[in-house]
């Protein structure tokens, strides 16, 4: 992988980017849709190098923990505090998202109940097998990258007749919020850097509407520094040639057709619905939930969970605007002061891929 982090390669790509971007009066603004891209850009100090080359990077909505609205988190907290003998299994950062009623990790569970951190969806199934006397609810969130493995758990549990297992699914797909960002017109952007892992599942065609309907450039990019710069080069070439497209700058992993086997599992187990995203509001056909035949392993149907509550962000938290790319984390008054990884006021400071966490952990050098 060293080829993709090598200083000389990076310098050459940056020179190419500077040459392509050089003549513009103001910097090109490229949205990295995915939180993992945000990480690489900051982890390697690319942000300042790109700015010097005429590119401003804008973080987008690609962090599942961040865009999961507080309705879900508050429902999970109510669930584990009110229902006895329930194990709520979830990823570590989901337990730290602050809500009006505190974070899941600080909730006092009902008798016999507990919150358990798992590292993979599979672990939640083993938990259910180990604790037959308790109901295990897997609170899973993710984009197309993780959705197939979460869907697979629901199917496994149903097929195995595992009666004490269900899934609270906070599942989101990436293309619809891109439309929402473009349609709102509230952020000036020059191109999208599409997420490599998501694209490995869905392929490149789901983004084609961006080029076709909006005449807007974009490129699928991987997660090493050179991958990201190659994606940016492609976007700038599309701008120069006035030929917006969906370029694939991550061909060593992403095939144009994606991963049909993974998509088949999704299609067979999940239905699209109009979902509410933090910061972006209601987006048509942007969320996935289990099909009616999976009601027995769907925590919402099985336990009559109410997700329609009017949950709000904590006062002062601007995660919503950050997820839309309207402001950058340091523009928020709470950033680094009242809000830090030790005491987060919103999910963008909790998730390892959240824009605020990444900005806080990998700060730019002045001057």
């Amino acid at each position: 992988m060293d080829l993709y982090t090598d200083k000389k390669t990076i310098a050459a790509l940056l020179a190419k980017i500077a040459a392509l971007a050089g003549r513009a009066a103001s910097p090109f603004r490229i949205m990295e849709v995915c939180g993992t891209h945000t990480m690489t850009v900051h982890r390697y100090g690319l942000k300042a190098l790109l700015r010097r080359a005429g590119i401003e990077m804008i973080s987008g909505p690609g962090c599942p923990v961040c865009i999961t609205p507080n309705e879900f988190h508050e429902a999970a907290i109510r669930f584990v505090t009110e229902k006895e003998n329930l194990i709520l299994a979830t990823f570590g950062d989901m337990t730290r998202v602050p809500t009006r009623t505190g974070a899941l990790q600080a909730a006092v569970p009902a008798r016999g109940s507990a919150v358990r951190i798992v590292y993979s969806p599979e672990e939640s199934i083993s938990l259910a097998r180990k604790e037959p006397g308790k109901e295990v609810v897997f609170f899973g969130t993710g984009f197309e990258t993780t959705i197939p493995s979460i869907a697979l758990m629901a199917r496994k549990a149903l097929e195995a007749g595992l009666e004490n297992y269900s899934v609270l699914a906070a599942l989101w797909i990436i293309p619809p919020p891109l439309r929402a960002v473009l349609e709102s017109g509230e952020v000036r952007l020059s191109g999208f850097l599409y997420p490599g892992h998501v694209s490995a599942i869905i392929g490149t065609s789901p983004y084609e509407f961006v080029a076709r309907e909006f005449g807007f450039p974009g490129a699928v990019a991987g997660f090493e520094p050179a991958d990201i710069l190659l994606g940016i080069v492609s976007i700038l070439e599309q701008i120069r040639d006035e030929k917006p497209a969906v370029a694939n700058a991550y061909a060593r992993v992403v095939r144009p057709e994606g991963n049909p086997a993974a998509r088949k599992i999704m299609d067979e187990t999940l239905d699209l619905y109009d979902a509410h995203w933090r910061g972006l509001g209601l987006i048509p056909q942007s969320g996935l939930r289990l099909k009616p035949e999976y009601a027995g392993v769907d925590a919402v149907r099985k336990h009559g969970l109410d997700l329609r509550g009017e949950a709000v962000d904590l006062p002062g938290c601007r995660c919503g605007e950050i997820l839309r790319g309207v402001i950058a984390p340091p523009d928020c008054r709470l950033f680094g002061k009242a809000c830090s990884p030790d005491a987060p006021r919103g999910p963008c400071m909790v998730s390892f891929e959240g824009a605020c966490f990444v900005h806080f952990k990998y700060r730019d050098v002045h001057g």
Partner: protein
Amino acid sequence: MDKVSLELGGGGRTMRDFIARTIVPAFENPRLRELLDASHLPGKIAFTTDSYVVDPIFFPGGDIGTLAVNGTANDLVVAGAVPRFISLALILEEGLPWADLLRILRSVRNASKRAGVEVVTGDTKVVRRGQGDKIYINTSGIGRVIARPRARAARPGDRIIVTGTLGEHSLAILLARGDFGLEAKVRSDCAALTFLLPLWKNGAFWMRDITRGGLATVLSELAGSLSFPLVIEEESIPLSKAARAAAGLLGIDPLYLACEGRAVLAVKEPSAGRVLAVLKKHPLGRRAAVIGRVDRTIGRPGELILRTKAGGLRLLEPLTSELLPRIC
């Protein structure tokens, strides 16, 4: 906060704040306020103490016994003292296999011999099953002072040297716990750093063992006490193949991983080459490297700056909230 959380002992900022705001004011002692790894006392004596709660108690490359000797000896070495005497206090859980206890005592004996310290006093307590976890050890150590660490002596051009590869101890523990279901051959770097002692007279003016919080946290503390920024070169930082692979797979940043047999030194510019040569001759220092310098051309005073492999610059923060409890 109305109850103690794991974060308090994590080696990160929460722990530093706890020590500075709660412990230090409770005792009002100027010697304590210095917060060195060991206190310098009248009569050229250095004194330190440390408790060991590592889980599992046996791991590739060592066990809780080797750790208890080396950790305390190393705190003396980096405070500028030759380790001489240690105490050994055992807190045992009812039911600990006798063979495990004997094996740990053998490790203590062998490690003391290698570190050149004598076990001269001790204590044994047993707690009921479930009230402790197998065995906890406390050791205190006394050493003879040969130098006083002087972070303030740093001037632009002075070099930062690490004595070896980073993070093997943390990774060995994490992998031994099986949390990740990964099999990899990583041995803890647990060892006594007494071979660094001669360097106190040969250009080194500051040392720290790289324990909880990792290199980034240790160097942040150094940077914070300087009137200049520190600049570290990512591509110069030595990492073992196993650590590189495991860190890549687990997404862990080796700059924040704990070692138990590595140190970072600040060295006067003219001595850097000689110090590096001395280190490389020792089996524990073969992978030693100059990784950075005290700078004046970029950044602001007190900042710790990383020049990444890709050539970009960013600030390195001390460890905040990532938790790896019971690593030592």
